[in-house]
């Protein structure tokens, strides 16, 4: 459902709160230090797999590569049927038809980046057309990027309207808005962009494209989670969070889960409201899961390539 920001501010003013960087980073560091019970670690690993958007976004992607990705997405560990499937695969538009073919009959989502990923600076009509096209091809989730050029130059209305138009173009597909927090500067900007994207109709807000040096960090995720909590309090709507880029270890994945649980509550500990965009992380999760179960480390070669 989309909101007109002006309309929304008349009915329920969406406040954009300031963020104190020192304290935010302290809180994130404190949460990173929580230790989990062994069963909780198993639960966290299982949940992290179920929340994974298994991703390949390379210029070198081919249908063959996508077939391999999808097979791994359905059955991350062919030797262990208790391992769940991932939440979705995340691919470039041209690869959507291949992914649709591979994942027919499964509950796995097909996410496509669209809208001149990763810069988002193409003509608006072309960006919207790209979104409509991927949805027609069968994408169930659309990962678009915030127009940082508009946002950083203070043209918030433009950035807002583009997201709202993209939401219309996505139709029934879920819309994730990538803020590319590494390009936004201070946390206040992350908070402002989060509130803007949610008010404009985002179903999920997402940290990063993974295409620049700075990707998801724990404080950024905490800042976005706090924005989501405020938006839920102010509008009654529950928006999801996707962290992406640079998440490679099992420990990182459960640190994000702790941030989510402590900030947003247990209702967000579910793939409908939390996603991790990753590729190499999946085998790390499997490795840790088997280590926790057997008490022995395995070689990464014991797990199939995705």
């Amino acid at each position, binding site marked *: 459902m989309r909101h007109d920001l002006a309309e929304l501010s008349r009915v329920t003013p969406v406040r954009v*709160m300031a963020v104190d960087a020192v304290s935010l980073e302290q809180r994130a560091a404190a949460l990173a230090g929580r230790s989990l019970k062994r069963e909780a670690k198993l639960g966290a690993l299982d949940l992290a797999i179920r929340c994974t958007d298994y991703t390949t976004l390379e210029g070198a992607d081919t249908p063959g590569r996508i077939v391999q990705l999808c097979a791994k997405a359905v059955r991350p560990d062919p030797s262990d049927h208790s391992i769940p499937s991932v939440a979705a695969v995340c691919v470039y538009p041209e690869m959507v038809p291949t992914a649709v073919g591979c994942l027919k009959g499964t509950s796995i989502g097909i996410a496509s980046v669209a809208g001149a990923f990763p810069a988002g600076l193409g003509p608006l009509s072309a960006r919207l057309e790209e979104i409509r096209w991927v949805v027609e091809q069968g994408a169930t989730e659309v990962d678009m990027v915030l127009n940082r050029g508009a946002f950083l130059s203070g043209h918030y209305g433009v950035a807002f309207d583009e997201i709202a138009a993209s939401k219309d173009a996505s139709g029934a597909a879920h819309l994730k808005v990538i803020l590319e927090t590494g390009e936004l500067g201070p946390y206040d900007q992350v908070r402002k962009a989060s509130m803007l994207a949610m008010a404009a109709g985002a179903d999920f807000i997402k940290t990063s494209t993974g295409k620049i040096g700075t990707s998801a960090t724990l404080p950024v995720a905490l800042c976005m989670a706090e924005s989501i909590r405020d938006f839920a309090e102010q509008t009654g709507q529950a928006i999801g969070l996707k962290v992406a880029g640079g998440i490679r270890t099992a420990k990182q994945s459960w640190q994000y889960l702790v941030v989510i649980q402590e900030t947003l509550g247990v209702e967000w500990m579910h793939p409908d409201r939390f996603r991790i965009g990753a590729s190499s992380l999946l085998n790390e999760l499997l490795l840790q899961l088997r280590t926790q179960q057997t008490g022995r480390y395995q070689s990464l070669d014991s797990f199939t390539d995705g």
Partner: protein
Amino acid sequence: MDLEPVKLQYATSRESTDIVHLEKSYGLFIDGKMVEPRSGAMFTSVNPATEEPLTQVAEAGSDDVDLAVAAARRAYEHGWRDLPGKERAKYVFRIARLLQERAREFAVLETIDGGKPIKESRDVDIPLAAAHFFYYAGWADKLGYAFPGRRPKPIGVAGQIIPWNFPLLMAAWKLAPALASGNTVVLKPAETTPLTALLLTEVLRDADLPPGVVNVLTGDGVAGAALVNHPGVDKIAFTGSTDVGKEIQRALAGTGKRLTLELGGKAANIVFEDAALDQAVEGVVNGIFFNQGHVCCAGSRLLLQEPIAEAFLDKLRSRMATLRVGDPLDKNTDVGAINSRQQLDKISSLVDAGVEEGAEMYQAPCPLPERGFWFRPTILTGVTPAHRVAQEEIFGPVLSVLTFRTPEEAVAKANNTRYGLSAGVWTEKGSKILWMADRLRAGVVWENTFNRFDPASPFGGFRESGFGREGGVQGLAPYLALEAIDA
């Protein structure tokens, strides 16, 4: 496939106590040796989280105070006073390094003797204690530069009486500047938390500190009073309650002894509507629930600007629901045990009085252990300045909430107290912070943070919070006679 959300359970991650070796009983540390108290009297130190006895500790009487003061006097006159600053510095540096080397042992002991979470003793108390020794060690050979136009000389024998809320840290705050300035010391730790000061005597011996330079007398108010009234003591430094502070000041009037007092507080933590509210919530939680609220500078009065008061309290209550209260040795614990049954009773009765006066109470819904002294993190709303809980120091995890409309009103309410130790201001506007800091009558004003300490920064109060400063170059002054140098 519809799946339920998953809730992660945190593991008990209990710090081992194996590193701590407690003797069956401890004597008094006088003239470099552990000696039995003259009277033979002993008392028991208890772990407040389990109510189990830890060990027996000597109860010093006035005879023991005589011996300790005499030892301190000998050490002062026969060596320590005349030792060059750079030599004194070596001892103080050595103490700092030895503390760091044994940091884990000190942290565990502090936690089992006082009830504070291991997270805090490990990350705050012990590192800061070492930092104070390092800082003042650096001053020992530079005293001539600390007060331009003055020639600094040590004072003599200092009697130092410290509280139970930060036992080792308060010992460090007192010992480090006194030793660096060339004074000798008789230290009396609090009755309920004597153990880290006793462990510190091992560090002093390992540092080869000459006998008598520091003497440690455990005991109760009897020993404290004997120390205060001893004619051989040149200076008293006291941290503790305002009532005892007043008694000490009365006793010292006309004696010529120097005095510094660091007493109670009822600090205002002031949140403006433009503040970073999510972080202010963290700051408010840290301000009042840090060390179970057993903090003289705790932000025990929350002043909220009216437009955000309700929203802020909602956030605060949700955050309080995630606080983990319990076993202080568990690294996940946020709030530990109340220091003693006596303190628990005092907190309970003041909170009852608050509710009777019409305050509305919210308590964090956390499970509490069966044994030990515990009090749920508590907020009292609907409090007005006339209520006892808005005026009296509770010294527990209890926050009284008031509201205000304008900065002027915030200042008026914040200053409407007998105390003046600390205050916090939360706003994104720098000019407002400076405007507030000019008008708040408090020794420390924190801006967008709370309970941050640094050895280089002076700490101390106004009015009934006491006088004199600890920390920084200012913290040297109470331990030095500053003679004018003729031009």
